[in-house]
């Protein structure tokens, strides 16, 4: 409030206040004077004096009622005396009344002016905060918080700034993730290429050797040669098995390195998920898949039961996605859940088709404004921003160890034993979602289970 404009506003306010007080004083003077004149009008006083004379005259004419007339006379005389005292104090009473009203009005006007100034100062502070946030945003800072919770114009602009900043932050994170994954993909491609040629040659040579050992062994010979040949064949078969395993690893590298671009098709995501749950319901012996309404995930939007009639909500959640790739993501997540359950105490029997522990994987769809279901603030959403369909995949497994969480989506990060997996599932799944213009995040994890959230754009065509 120290700028020339603020000073001019203060002067204007002071002039307006002074003008209002002056106008009030003039009006109050007129009104109060008139009010007082009515009360002690000379005609009123004269009539009261006449009344006094009448009472006396009546008492003379009617001696029997003299006491009554005397009583009335006294009452009128008393009233007349009071009015005369008031009349005598006319200037004092009117002046006091006007002063009191003026003070009252002045106090109210001053309070109003004070409130106005306070609001102005507050508004200026809010504008300064908004300006600072915009400056930080323009300087490239992301995740800028304006801290505006009111729903007026400044509050809405603040929410837009925060929304923009969140979108920028999200895009940067996605870009960084994509760059990181691209580097990993390139490394995987090179490794697969370098491994594939010698591996193929070794497999061919070993296969030939295995064949030769088999041909010679059929011709008989002494017992010692036959035994060595059998042993050599077994060794060759064992090496071939290891080479096959190495080949599968190389194939996994290749698959990760050459993830196909998604062929997007706008479709009903709810129907897709319901179909997945029905088709793959028996794929994992220790899992039950539920594509139904589940308790609402923490987020601003209401949960949408999978397969619910459109009228119940805002229509079926539609999104553009590649059915094959998205199916691969869901399979990866269910695989992880199944293996985590199997690794849990008492879980192996169920994994092998036994009837011990069975887990549940629940799919819940939520339509949220853009910004991420977990990060969105309830009060500051921009209703014009594109919406995001969040598909939550929740299991009731043992949860994810805290030590893994910081690098959960990086390639080759796994909780399994060596040789049981390469830790590429979540990295591939996230890459698929990022290629869809969405993301994959871990919503929460605990000993009661884990929830992964698949975010897919809904209000626009995805731009991978």
């Amino acid at each position: 409030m120290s700028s020339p404009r603020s000073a001019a506003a203060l002067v204007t306010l002071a002039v307006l206040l002074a003008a209002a007080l002056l106008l009030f004083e003039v009006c109050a003077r007129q009104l109060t004077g008139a009010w007082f004149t009515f009360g002690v009008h000379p005609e009123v006083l004269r009539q009261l004096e006449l009344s006094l004379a009448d009472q006396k005259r009546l008492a003379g004419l009617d001696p029997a009622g003299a006491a009554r007339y005397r009583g009335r006379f006294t009452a009128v005389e008393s009233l007349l005396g009071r009015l005369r005292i008031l009349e005598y104090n006319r200037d004092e009473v009117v002046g006091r009344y006007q002063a009191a009203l003026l003070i009252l009005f002045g106090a109210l006007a001053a309070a109003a002016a004070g409130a106005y100034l306070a609001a102005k100062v507050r508004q200026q502070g809010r504008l300064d905060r908004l300006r600072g946030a915009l400056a930080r945003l323009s300087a490239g800072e992301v995740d800028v918080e304006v801290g505006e919770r009111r729903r007026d114009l400044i509050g809405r602009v603040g929410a837009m700034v925060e929304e923009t900043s969140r979108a920028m932050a999200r895009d940067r994170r996605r870009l960084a993730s994509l760059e990181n994954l691209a580097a990993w993909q390139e490394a995987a491609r090179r490794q697969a290429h370098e491994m594939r040629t010698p591996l193929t040659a070794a497999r061919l040579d070993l296969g030939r050797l295995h064949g030769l050992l088999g041909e010679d062994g059929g011709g008989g010979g002494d017992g010692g040669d036959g035994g060595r040949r059998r042993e050599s064949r077994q060794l060759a078969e064992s090496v071939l098995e290891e080479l096959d395993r190495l080949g599968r690893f190389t194939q996994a590298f290749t698959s990760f390195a050459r993830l196909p671009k998604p062929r997007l098709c706008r479709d009903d995501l709810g129907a897709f998920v319901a179909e997945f749950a029905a088709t793959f319901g028996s794929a994992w012996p220790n899992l039950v898949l539920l594509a139904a309404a589940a308790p609402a995930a923490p987020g601003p939007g209401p949960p949408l039961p999978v397969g619910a009639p459109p009228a119940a909500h805002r229509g079926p959640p539609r999104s553009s996605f590649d059915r094959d790739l998205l199916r691969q993501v869901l399979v990866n997540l269910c695989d992880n859940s199944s293996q985590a359950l199997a690794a849990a105490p008492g879980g192996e029997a169920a994994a092998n088709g036994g009837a011990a522990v069975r887990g549940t994987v629940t799919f819940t769809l939520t339509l949220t404004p853009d910004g991420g279901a977990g990060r969105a603030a309830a009060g500051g959403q921009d209703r014009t921003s594109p919406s995001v369909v969040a598909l939550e995949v929740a299991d009731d497994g043992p949860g994810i160890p805290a030590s893994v969480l910081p690098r959960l989506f990086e390639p080759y990060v796994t909780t399994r034993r060596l040789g049981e997996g390469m830790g590429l599932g979540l990295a591939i799944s996230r890459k698929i979602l990022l290629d869809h213009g969405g993301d994959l995040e871990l919503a929460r994890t605990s000993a009661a289970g884990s929830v992964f959230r698949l975010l897919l754009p809904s209000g626009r065509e995805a731009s991978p």
Partner: protein
Amino acid sequence: MTARALLALAPALAAAAALARAAPLLAERPVFELGADGVLVMAAVPDVLSNAEVKPRLTSGLTTSFVFEISATDAGGRKLRGGGLVEIRYELWDEVFLVTATGADGRQRRDSLPSLDRLVAWWRELKLPVLAPGNRLAAGACRLVLALSVLPFSRAEQSETQSWLSRSVADERAAAARAGETPSPAAAAAAPLSGVLDLLVSTSIKRRSVVDFEWRSVLRVRPAGADAERRP
């Protein structure tokens, strides 16, 4: 007359105007004498009752109060203060003047006078002790200043009117409450302030004097046993 002369005369003119405004001096002066018990008594008070400002007040039905205040500085330099009170009320029913004179000695004298002429005569014959009996003046020249304020009504009438005014406002509000009238939001908000406003208005009844008089005199006080002599 030059501007310089006007400027030179301005303070004198202003002082004269202030004096004239403060106390219209009468040609006559009251007489002061020491009573047998040494009490200073005021007598032969000039006829202020016939004054144009005072006369109409006498028959208003209200109690016109004549408040005397005296300041005496005796030969010893001692400054003494005293006074007296005369209240005159015209009884409209009986058409008589009811007069009460209260001296500095605390004694009251009450009279009922049938006409204004008799009242004026009573006034001229009035002798009123104006210094308390304990205040004995030292022998020698004593300078006296007597001020008279004529008030249009008595203190009792003042407080009675104030309470009537307050009561009227309160009764009006109580009647509105009894009638079940819902006060407007503005009236409800200003309710705490209305009490203050009423107080301000009801205490605005003042006993301003109608007219003031002032006389100065010198009283020669003889030593104990000798009579005092007034020198105008």
